[in-house]
């Protein structure tokens, strides 16, 4: 199957053109266009209820758009590519009474994998994630972290070309989180396209080649992290001062302060050098760093309750 390509000649694993999805009177996704390059890690961010999961379900053709066109792995508006997509839903769905081996074999068979191949893949993946002892245990005997890893295996076992992961890290302890992160990056290294949604901005910054943010059903950010950050300019100052956040109160040029406890992040208007002078006159500085806004900061700026304006990236 020939993949579509963008203006730069990059092959696209997923292409959405003017897609709209409504549920009754509510518009969940509004005129969304998106191009996910093949072999990339594409992060979907956005507040709860903004349309992330609906978009992912439309890519999987679980939902059909009311308007627009969706092309996935070269297949236009059909489910033909679904056997080449691995999916990890936001809420885990495993048969509690089935053994780990049977669940994985079943999910692999639904993707068209032959039994002999799936058995070998099950052994490989369980050993890789340290779960080989649990192969013949029922799902209900597993801890939450183990069950989540099994759900991940169910998504990758049939060697999909496109991996869609909806909140893959939610509820995981740091150890399991690292295991899963390494496994996802390994998928990218082996040439697969990974789309994942997350509320963990630090994780999105570290892992994603591209970040897409949806807010109230509309695209508000889309591009590489560097491009997104540069569009916001260097208006952020990280600093540590005697007196903490109290010392910053009432200083001219400070638009907002984010108190991180040991340090503060200030969004300033005007020249940061002027701010430095004013601060030095008021208190003792231990850290003053002019930086681009973090993804977290950008997210807050767009989606904070006070913010009603829709910003386009």
């Amino acid at each position, binding site marked *: 199957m020939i993949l579509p390509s963008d203006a730069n000649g990059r092959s696209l694993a997923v292409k959405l053109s003017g897609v709209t999805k409504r549920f009754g009177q509510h518009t969940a996704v509004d005129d969304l266009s998106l191009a996910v390059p093949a072999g990339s890690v594409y992060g979907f961010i956005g507040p709860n209820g903004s349309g992330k999961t609906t978009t992912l*379900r439309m890519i*999987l053709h*679980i*939902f059909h758009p009311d308007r627009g066109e969706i092309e996935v792995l070269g297949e236009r508006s059909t*489910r033909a590519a*679904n*056997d080449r*997509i691995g*999916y990890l*839903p936001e*809420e*885990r*769905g*495993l*048969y*509690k*009474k*089935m053994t780990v081996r049977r669940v994985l074999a*079943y*999910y692999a*068979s*639904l*993707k*068209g994998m032959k039994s002999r191949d799936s058995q070998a893949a099950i052994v490989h993946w369980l050993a890789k994630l340290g779960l080989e002892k649990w192969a013949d245990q029922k799902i209900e005997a597993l801890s939450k972290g183990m069950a989540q890893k099994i*759900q991940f295996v*169910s998504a990758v076992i049939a060697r999909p070309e496109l991996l*869609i992961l909806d909140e893959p890290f939610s509820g995981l302890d740091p150890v399991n989180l690292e295991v899963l992160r390494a496994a996802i990056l390994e998928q990218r290294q082996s040439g697969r396209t990974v789309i994942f949604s997350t509320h963990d901005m630090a994780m999105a910054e570290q892992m994603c080649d591209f970040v897409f943010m949806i807010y109230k059903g509309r695209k508000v950010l889309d591009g590489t992290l560097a491009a997104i950050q540069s569009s916001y300019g260097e208006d952020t100052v990280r600093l540590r001062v005697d007196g903490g956040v109290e010392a910053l109160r009432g200083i001219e040029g400070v638009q907002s302060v984010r108190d991180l406890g040991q340090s503060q992040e200030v969004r300033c208007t005007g020249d940061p050098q002027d701010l430095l002078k004013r601060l030095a006159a008021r208190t003792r500085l231990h850290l003053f760093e002019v930086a681009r806004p973090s993804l977290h900061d950008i997210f807050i700026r767009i989606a904070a309750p006070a913010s009603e304006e829709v910003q386009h990236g």
Partner: protein
Amino acid sequence: MVKIWRIAVTEFVNATRSKAFLLGILALPVLIGLSIALQYFGQKNKDVRDRRFAVVDRTSALFPVIASKAAERNETSIMRGDDDGRREQTAPKFIPELFDEGPAGSAATELVLADRVRRKEITGYFLIATNALSPEAAGEGALAWSTEAHSYSELPDWLEQTVNEEIRRLRFADAGVDQALVHKLMGNVPVKRLGLSNVDAATGDVVKAKTTNRFATFALPGGCLFLLYLMVMGSAPALLNTVLEEKMQKISEVLLSSATPFQLMMGKVLGATLVSLTLSGLYLGTVAALMWRMGVLDLVPPSLVLWFVFFQLVSLLMFGSIFAAIGASCSEIRDAQNLMFPVMLLVMLPFFVFMPIMQSPNSPFATGMSLFPPATPMLMMLRIAIPPGPPWWEIALGVGLTTLFTLACVWAGAKIFRIGILAQGQAPTLGKLVRWVLSK
């Protein structure tokens, strides 16, 4: 089709590996066995304590007979001997006592005896009015039994029969009529129930009609209906729970990333059908083996088994699709129960009407009911099982209508399933389900 089959096989394996399936197989024989065992246990442990009672005989003619018949009963009919010559009492002894009213009168007599009943000295008392022997006394309360234990009927039944026999004997004697002769003259002539005579095609001889077999006429059709009903009730409503559970556990969403909603629904319905066919195969096989041992297997025409399998398939596809759709459309079992009530009525409908249909299988009522598509599988099965069966055109029409109705159920069920399986929140109303069916 491959995915439908894979889902069906997984559903089948999951179901047949569960304890519930094993219990399901054993449920019917265990229930029958348990009921026989309980009846036997009840008989063995019957309360055989003596039943004392008072008799107020204002005719002065009936008590001696009551006393002698009770003594005879206590010595013979309630005693059962075993091989070792031991005698076992199988029912309570009846111990009558004549109550002497004296000059106190009726009201005082009844109060005294009522007190004795309350003190548990006697079970009850039997009042025989002075006019009890008169042929005009019938229906005037000339015989009365008073007790606290109204549910215990063995003693009043025995008294009624014994005293009436004696009253009749006395009336015949009084009228100078030989009772034995009257009895002989009044005897019934039984009607022998036969099939139809035939001509042997090979020899040309007339083959005499055979006596109607009660098993083939009543037990076989009734058994077919009961088993079909059991198979539908045991499998189709369970689909609602399975689908709802998978929806709530978000398993459906994972499956929908690999299969279409139609494939998922059909896989589940087919899986439940396979489970049901396995169960009925086990039951039918066991019954066939028993009938073969009893030498009555030839009473079951092979075509009946084929009709059974066909109607079972149709029923499960029809009701399975409906129940799966209801399960998919709800988010809570409570909402599903409200919606399943009218469907359960449809499933049970044949059970409400099968008696008049068995008595008159070719009546307009039977024809009409068996052509009502949701009831056709069970009621047409019943009519086919009762010899000689309905006319061929009725069977063909019934099969055609119910097949079309089943296809409509699968189509509508799939539309509801497609929208409902990922819908959350408010319980769907019937109107909403109709809108889902009619949506593009």
